[in-house]
């Protein structure tokens, strides 16, 4: 019984791709994704010229802009998407991953979490990156979305995604495991290997009481990941998709035993470097106030998912002096539509549906 269930849910990986085989005769991972989900090719001309800074600039990453005239946001970009559960945030995150892979041949990193697996639509192209420090204790199970069904235990990792690799420490991860043009789901290292070293070597970023240690909650890994990437590279286009950012950098962050507040400061200060080193940060949460305003202030783009009203008029958004929308547009939108905006203008857009390949959630227990 169990093996046939496993067969049912095993991922059919797309291995005939340029990224997997290292041969440019084959279609890219991004092409495969677009074909699977019916996403038309990226065409910046679909957007009106003077609104190109709203969405196209978020997606198309450039090191240099034109010398005059049109505004061009250079380097890494940053975005916060908010919406209620079920409004399509995770689908939008998947969709953005596809676009970034297609347009910039990026290294896309999705925050792996023990409780969620919204990345599953892209599983046939996913490289699972797991910490070597947890290798002996790690186990995976499939939990049905319908709680009346029974879970599937001891699932072989290779059946969950196209590739599985183990990283020794955060430097190894950034330097050798992450690859351009691929979609990675990275699970944090509970041992925080390499993070303290990266922190100590970063001359200009020193905070009282900040330390990375195995006692920290594993979500603190992400502060160190960003730091290591902006300090030590490699400086290829990289995007970090951080779902549930409210539990990583909450408004309520305190200077507690784990130095949470100081780490949020570290993240805030890393934003400028992120832009300059081609690291883009796409954050997702339930509402603006989930995330500490130190970080929120630095984010230049917002997405409002349908089902709740978008802000209007004077600044309801930290870091924005004004909001370009005059009326509420998103309350009446349906899933599959959303509003993207920055301080200067907005665009209402539609995107594709990316369904998960099966009705289970992947739970990876790092022991």
């Amino acid at each position, binding site marked *: 019984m169990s093996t046939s269930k496993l067969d049912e849910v095993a991922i059919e990986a797309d291995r005939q791709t340029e990224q997997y085989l290292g041969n440019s005769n084959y279609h890219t991972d991004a092409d495969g994704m677009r074909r699977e989900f019916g996403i038309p090719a990226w065409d910046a001309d679909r957007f*009106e010229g003077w609104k190109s800074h709203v969405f196209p600039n978020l997606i198309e990453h450039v090191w240099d802009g034109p010398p*005059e005239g049109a505004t061009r946001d250079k380097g890494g970009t940053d975005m916060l998407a908010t919406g209620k559960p079920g409004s399509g945030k995770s689908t939008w995150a998947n969709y953005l991953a596809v676009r970034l892979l297609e347009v910039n041949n990026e290294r896309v990193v999705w925050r792996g979490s023990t409780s969620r697996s919204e990345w599953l639509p892209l599983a046939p192209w996913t490289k699972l990156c797991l910490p070597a420090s947890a290798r002996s204790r790690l186990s995976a199970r499939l939990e049905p979305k319908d709680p009346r069904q029974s879970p599937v235990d001891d699932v072989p990792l290779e059946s969950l995604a196209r590739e599985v690799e183990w990283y020794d420490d955060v430097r190894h991860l950034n330097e050798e495991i992450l690859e351009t043009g691929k979609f990675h789901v990275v699970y944090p290292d509970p041992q925080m290997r390499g993070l303290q070293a990266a922190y100590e070597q970063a001359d200009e970023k020193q905070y009282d009481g900040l330390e990375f240690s195995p006692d920290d909650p594993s979500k603190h890994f992400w502060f160190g990941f960003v730091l290591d990437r902006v300090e030590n590279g490699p400086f290829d286009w990289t995007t970090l998709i951080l779902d549930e950012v409210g539990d990583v950098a909450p408004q309520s962050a305190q200077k507690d035993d784990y130095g949470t507040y100081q780490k949020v400061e570290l993240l805030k200060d890393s934003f400028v470097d992120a832009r300059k080193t081609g690291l883009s940060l796409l954050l997702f949460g339930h509402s603006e106030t989930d995330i500490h305003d130190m970080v929120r202030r630095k984010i230049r783009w917002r997405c409002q998912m349908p089902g709740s009203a978008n802000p209007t008029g004077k600044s309801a958004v930290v870091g924005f002096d004004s909001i370009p929308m*005059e009326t509420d*547009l998103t309350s009446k939108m349906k899933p599959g539509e959303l509003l993207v905006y920055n301080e200067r203008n907005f665009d*209402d857009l*539609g*995107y594709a549906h990316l369904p998960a390949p099966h009705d289970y959630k992947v739970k990876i227990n790092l022991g």
Partner: protein
Amino acid sequence: MTDDLPPVVDVLERNSLRGQPKVRSTAGREQAELPESVGSVFDEPLVDDGEEVYRPALVRLVGQDMREILADLLEGFQSRREVLEWAQRLAVRSLGKVPHDVYDALGRAFVSRMDDPERPLLSVLLVPSRRDRDVDEEVAREARRRLAGEYLLPSAHRALRELRADAGEYLGDAVGSSHDPLEQRYIAMRPALDELDDRQQSALARFLIGFNDGEAVLEWGGRADLATHGEIGDGFASRCYAEESTRRALLGSRRVDERARESLAAGYILPAYNAGVRVLSGRAGEQPHETRQDRERTTA
């Protein structure tokens, strides 16, 4: 049908315009005296030669486009057709900021009734020699000035505010360079608007001239879609073809057919022009019946 005229025209009603329509006689008709001072204040250039301009898009919008629009309104129009052409130019150059109410009122102004062949609003827009109704010229000019003040200036203000955020800033000597606003070819320096302007002009002209046959009407339907950026009501073009009386008006060459086409243009096409520009400019509508929310969205 009750009238919802803009407030300024109520003034005309109270000044008892509901007199007998003037019977036009071709013999001994006085030439209209255009008061020489109308509009002359707009003859002065907004930008002197040699003056540096750092925000060309804004200067072009305010300096050239809207000034022309205002000047034309204050002078009065030589024909109904001119009013329509002016309303089209206004829609584009105001970036769609003129409220729908104004275009609705214009549309109603072009509808003749048995007891009231020329509506007051239309009378004041036309120059004295072209009116069917007796109006004190001073009252008419004041009405046009009020229209400019109550509707055009606020719309220009809103258009400016929108453009202000989008206009690039140019450094360096503006005069004679490609940034010289007086040399800029495009409306508000936006090629897409210029293109829409052309399409609107030619689609309107085509419509007013009339059509040779049914096929030409159908062909025009496609042009109307482009010219209104998709905002022309569902089935307008097909109704043009299918409704007997409408088709007669479009294909006919009598005077009454011409008038009918003008009414149709004022009532259906021009409001759609305004909506189309508004949609193209990308701002949320203030009107609850805005169709923008129903149209298909751009794919991200």
